[in-house]
């Protein structure tokens, strides 16, 4: 795991405050007001996309042994880069903690944030940010040591619970505890590695976060079978990428790139067959999506064959999911296509 400079969150926050104060990035500072010079143009001029990701969460964003970032969220950064530059590697990844992520985006340090971030009303409004869609429907759960014999979350009365600060997780936890009259002692540690090691050492009886995060943590424990994820899901956690408020064009591109990935799965377009489909498939929607017709890419400010470029780089939504999340034990569940029972992933029409 890539070591993060100590107290990065604090420095990041202070740096971001300083940047907001100084207006270090005049282009970014003036862009939303003018509405003309957009973030998209700034990215094109710079030649790289700056993408805020997690500091290290298996399956979502984690550098591999060669230092190359891999994961579900990382694929979204790669997809946007492929849409803009036709080169998925033109991305600079900025690891952000739960606490530094919003200020990093607000201050213009990163162009977009793809970091397991829950879409809530107050974040959408008072932070000056825009969510562009839901690429992962999640919910908060609990993980306990199998040896405790706990079967449901209600049995956690009097327990000590490890929770990361600065997330919706800790507020959901207190809401749930109040609603169910469960008393607990919190242990609140910011750095995920420290928190998980406190849980593993027995400092806490339970560890709570989004179920996907629990699965990722469980898979990276020495003996995953010693840990059980409880069946209770206590909240809705729609996760998705987000951008600064005020630049609709860039937000549109993010939104439609996600739809393209989902639609491609629906239409059966994969990383392997995309070139052949673009050449041969006669279905009108496929033709529009893959840039043969309609000039949809131009409307978004990217080349017309952008979807072909994206799919060549990352594959469709189902392929991304299978590559990164299924190996750590996360099932499609609500993230299956809307055409399967219980699935909620639905793409708007490409027209």
């Amino acid at each position: 795991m890539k070591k993060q400079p100590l107290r990065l969150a604090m420095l990041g926050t202070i740096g971001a405050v300083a940047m907001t104060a100084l207006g270090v990035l005049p282009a970014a500072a003036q862009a939303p007001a003018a509405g003309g010079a957009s973030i998209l143009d700034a990215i094109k001029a710079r030649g790289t996309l700056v993408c805020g990701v997690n500091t290290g969460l298996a399956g979502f964003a984690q550098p591999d042994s060669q230092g190359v970032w891999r994961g579900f969220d990382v694929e979204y950064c790669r997809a946007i880069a492929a849409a803009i530059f036709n080169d998925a590697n033109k991305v600079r990844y900025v690891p952000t903690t739960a606490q530094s992520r919003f200020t990093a985006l607000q201050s213009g340090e990163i162009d977009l944030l793809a970091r397991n971030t829950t879409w809530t009303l107050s974040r959408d409004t008072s932070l000056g940010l825009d969510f562009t869609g839901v690429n992962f429907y999640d919910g908060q759960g609990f993980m306990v040591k199998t040896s405790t014999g706990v079967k449901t979350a209600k049995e956690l009365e009097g327990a000590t619970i490890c929770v990361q600060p600065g997330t919706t997780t800790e507020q959901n936890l207190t809401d749930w505890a109040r609603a169910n009259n469960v008393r607990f002692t919190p242990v609140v540690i910011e750095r995920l590695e420290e928190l998980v090691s406190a849980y593993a050492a027995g400092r806490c009886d339970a560890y709570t976060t989004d179920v996907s995060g629990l699965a990722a943590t469980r898979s990276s424990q020495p003996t995953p079978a010693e840990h059980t994820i409880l069946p209770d899901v206590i909240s809705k956690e729609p996760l998705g990428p987000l951008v600064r408020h005020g630049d609709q064009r860039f937000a549109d591109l993010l939104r439609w790139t996600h739809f393209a990935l989902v639609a491609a799965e629906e239409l059966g377009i994969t990383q392997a067959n995309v070139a052949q489909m673009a050449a041969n498939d006669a279905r009108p929607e496929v033709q529009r999506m893959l840039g043969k017709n309609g000039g949809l890419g131009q409307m978004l400010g990217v080349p017309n064959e952008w979807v072909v470029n994206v799919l060549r780089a990352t594959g469709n939504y189902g392929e991304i999911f299978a590559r990164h999340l299924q190996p750590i034990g996360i099932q499609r569940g609500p993230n299956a296509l809307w055409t399967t029972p219980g699935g909620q992933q639905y793409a708007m029409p490409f027209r």
Partner: protein
Amino acid sequence: MSQSAADPRHLRTPPKRQLRLSWADERIRAIVWQVLIVGAVVGIVWWLVRNTQHNLEVRRIATGFGFLQREAGLPIGEHLIEYTPASTYLRALTVGVLNTLKVAVIGIVLATVLGTVIGIARLSKNWLLAKVSAVYVEVIRDVPLLLQLLFWYTILQGLPAPRQALNPVAGVFLSNRGLRLPFLDWEAGHSWALLAFVAGCFATWFYARTMRRRRMQDGQPRPIWPAALGFLIGLPVVAWWLGGAPTGVEWPALRGFNFQGGMTISPEYFALLIGLTTYTAGFIAEIVRAGILAVSQGQWEAAQALGLRPGTVLRQVVLPQALRVIVPPMTSQYLNLTKNSSLAVAIGYQDIVSIANTTLNQTGQAIEGIAIIMLVYLTISLSISLFMNWYNSRIALVER
């Protein structure tokens, strides 16, 4: 005489020179520079404030301190005052400030005691004692504090689980959930006793001062301890008795996952306190050693020649003089300890930085959050500085 008075060379005030509007005039130059520099500073500050306001407005980021009255919804493990997740952000931040003070105040006291002992031990004629102290100082000073905190925290996590808790004395349990002690079933009578004890402290101090003044006048020794005993022990006992003499004690007992009842010292707090105390004590030891060595050898010899015992020499002759050298750098160490307590974030002790960080993340109001943290540390640090400066001026050498 009248002639010399008229002589301008004998006047106490220099003659008034006319201001010449010229770069060659020293005073004009000074005024111009000062106006320019003050103007530049004011201009930069104004520009920063305006720019921040503009940027926040453009990005539609909420501003202001209105969020302080909103419900916080944060879980806080340790609180000295009543707190529930339904309390406001203001209350949560107050809890954070109190938690910071709790570790800083106790840490300063313990570090001072430990540091003084080690500093003196390093000067001891006992070879083993001197060497052990020297090794302590060198090791502690050379390892980063953050690592030491993580070290202590990891050690405390290595303690057994609650069900296998160590139980050295009846009612005392040591586990990886912290130290559980029996505690008084707090009632009004206890509050009265506490209040009486505080009053007793003031009374003792006042009494001692009066007695010392009388002794200065007639040279008669007057023992202070009988009255002090009455003030410090008798008064609280009477108050406790008048308050209904409550005797209830809450014993910790294992119920469900953890011990319930009694008082807890959490591993987070304990690790932070040990880490800060031992680390700062290393520096304080060196300051104390330097202070003692700064007192000239002649003072030792003169005191010994009077037949005083070594302990008395140290306490009555050397330390009072050493204090003049010790106190100013000690102030810096106290400030360091207080500010280093913000490393609590790393091991999950919820101090003001931890809670303000969470607050600013939940509300998205980073500037206000950072401003609150800065204000809190500035207030605490200035209070320590003011107190130490007052103390320093009290013990300073009075020159006649």
